[in-house]
């Protein structure tokens, strides 16, 4: 790139010479000044650094794009901007405390993070069969509500990134309803640490099931509206169709799972293929399409939300028949001693439990203290448990040395693997289509970087 004349004085878009050529800093609406500084007959390559702080990169994702005009010839990802050392931190907390860490990884599907971890702990403990039915139904219900909220954000932000702001506002409005359900059941809208080894943290609240019924009824009305807005919209289809193409062989080689894999027509869904938490007892369909592009993935997400509503309805009817049933494993050496309750100073242990341990039983106090500070021990060994998160296969590799803390916890986050397909999906296409391709695999950087 020749730089014969560097006379620009724009303080917001300065340029500097480096050993690998001139570097321009572009902050928006000053592209013309940069272009004017570039020789029109360039034969050298231009490398554009996009992100990590950029509204269209779906989070703190850095894209390094080599462009020729508006075509992308090479695309690479830079990740790690949201690394928080969650896996390392979990090695210094008890098995139960681990839930509050892993729920923060993929912040759009906290329930699935928790489920993968909790199922792995239970498998190491060998208590998978002892988890009460009500806890399993509650887990499935929360995971499916979570799937709806995650898909809504995927569609909302994907729409926003191509300029469809109404899709964004509609998506976030509906997602709010999902978060209300989380708040009602767990006390927290995100990062709720609702699933615990052995069960769930709290029983169904008063009026909880009616609220879920209203939610399902409202979503049944509003999801078709979203479909009517987008499905046949010529601009939407024009931007999404044939963009971000990745066929079955590409998906398997690059480890891509979830809606992107199902958009190739392969019905791989762990809920059906390797059922957990009793998914094999629910009636639902796996959605596939033969359009392995951004549009096919969008339609799959839309249809999967309908299927999730079906599962949620079945969960509610089961929960109505399980009133008063336990939500935590019966083994007192593992079960968290107290259930959560809302008190005057916020959420905490139930008052009855406090009265019991502080006023009635010394042994109960000792038991509570030991289990909460020391925690339970998990027999040595390792396990690998996978769940179908909204983005694909989310797995937890958990190693125990027989102690009160995980020896090693590793999460195979679907976004991490799926993001490797960026180059295959966007090279050779237009610069604007890179955004669509990445939005179609819906990476969540909290999960990628952990």
């Amino acid at each position, binding site marked *: 790139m020749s730089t014969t004349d560097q006379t620009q004085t724009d303080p917001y878009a300065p340029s500097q010479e480096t050993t690998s050529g001139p570097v321009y800093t572009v902050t928006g609406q000053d592209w013309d000044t940069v272009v004017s500084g570039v020789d029109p007959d360039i034969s050298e390559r231009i490398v554009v650094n996009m992100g990590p702080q950029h509204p269209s990169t779906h989070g703190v994702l850095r894209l390094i794009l080599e462009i020729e005009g508006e075509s992308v010839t090479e695309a690479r990802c830079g990740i790690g901007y949201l690394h928080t050392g969650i896996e390392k931190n979990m090695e210094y907390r008890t098995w139960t405390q681990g839930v509050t860490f892993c729920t923060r990884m993929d912040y759009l599907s906290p329930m699935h993070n928790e489920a993968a971890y909790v199922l792995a702990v239970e498998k190491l403990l060998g208590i998978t069969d002892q988890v009460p039915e009500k806890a399993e139904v509650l887990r499935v219900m929360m995971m499916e509500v979570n799937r709806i909220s995650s898909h809504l954000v995927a569609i909302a932000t994907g729409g926003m990134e191509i300029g469809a702001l109404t899709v964004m506002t509609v998506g976030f409005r509906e997602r709010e309803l999902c978060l209300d359900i989380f708040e009602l059941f767990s006390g927290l809208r995100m990062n709720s640490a609702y699933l615990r080894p052995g069960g769930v943290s709290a029983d169904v609240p008063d009026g909880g099931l009616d609220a879920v019924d209203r939610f399902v009824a409202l979503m049944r009305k509003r999801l078709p509206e979203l479909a009517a807005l987008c499905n046949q919209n010529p601009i939407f289809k024009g931007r999404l169709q044939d963009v971000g193409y990745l066929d079955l062989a590409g998906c398997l080689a690059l480890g891509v*799972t979830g809606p992107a894999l199902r958009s190739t027509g392969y019905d791989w869904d762990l809920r059906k293929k390797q059922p957990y938490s009793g998914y094999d007892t629910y009636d639902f369909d796996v959605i596939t399409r033969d359009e392995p592009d951004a549009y096919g993935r969008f339609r799959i997400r839309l249809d999967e939300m309908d299927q999730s509503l079906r599962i949620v309805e079945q969960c509610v009817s089961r929960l109505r028949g399980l009133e008063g049933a336990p939500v935590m494993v019966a083994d007192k050496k593992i079960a968290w001693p107290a259930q959560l309750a809302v008190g005057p100073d916020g959420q905490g242990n139930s008052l009855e439990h406090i009265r019991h341990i502080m006023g009635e039983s010394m042994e109960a106090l000792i038991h509570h203290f030991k289990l909460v500070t020391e925690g339970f021990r998990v027999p040595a*060994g390792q396990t690998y448990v996978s769940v179908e998160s909204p983005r694909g296969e989310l797995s937890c590799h958990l190693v125990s040395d027989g102690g009160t803390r995980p020896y090693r916890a590793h999460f195979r986050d679907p976004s991490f*693997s799926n993001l490797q397909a960026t180059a295959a999906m966007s090279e050779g296409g237009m610069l604007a289509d890179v955004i669509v391709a990445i939005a179609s695999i819906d990476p969540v950087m909290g999960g990628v970087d952990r």
Partner: protein
Amino acid sequence: MTQDPSSTAVGGEEVVPSTARTLEVIDVREGMFGVHGSGDTSGYGGLQRPVAMPEASARPYGGWFDEVADRLEQVLGESVGAGAVESAVVDRGELTLHVSRERVRDVCQHLRDDAGLRFELCSGISGVHYPHDAGRELHAVYHLLSMTHNRRIRLEVAAPESDPHIASVVSVYPTADWHERETYDFFGIVFDGHPALTRILMPDDWPGHPQRKDYPLGGIPVEYKGATIPPPDERRSYS
């Protein structure tokens, strides 16, 4: 740690004879509250607890595990325990194959390409650091998934800290690219043959490998309502 007598020593380390133990003892913990020497006045100071991982299993493994092992022995031309596959562990309904670090690429190639095995998806690679497992401190764990047969197996490959090299499987499973980079970043395992083995999550100039057990968690004491709470890795721990 069980070492098969016929397996070769890696990195110039002495091979421990397998006849001495039956369990895979990787460490021995002492005391109760993470205090060592004269500091522990709790009376639990003499407590000793060996840390043992599940031991190698003998045939039959049960279910489809034998089918996979038979087929793998056929395509490799060597039996489990006498070649590339050093041992097999069946625990909690999962099959783990311990594979030698030079041959892991070969084994993966067969596992992917043979129609009877067909593990077409490498789900992920994670590292585990066992600082007391002498000569085999660093483990890389591969999680393979066969969608055709709906099966999962796990490969475990060990390397000594003094020579942390393992053959890369990127040429077999392209998805292993980022997973191997992550394992290198956090454990310092060098995957020979990887196209561009650089750090992925930590900054490029970061010193050390954070997920190793001797790498401190870090943190500062926090004062709350007059009490000072030490950082998590300095708090009382139950060994």
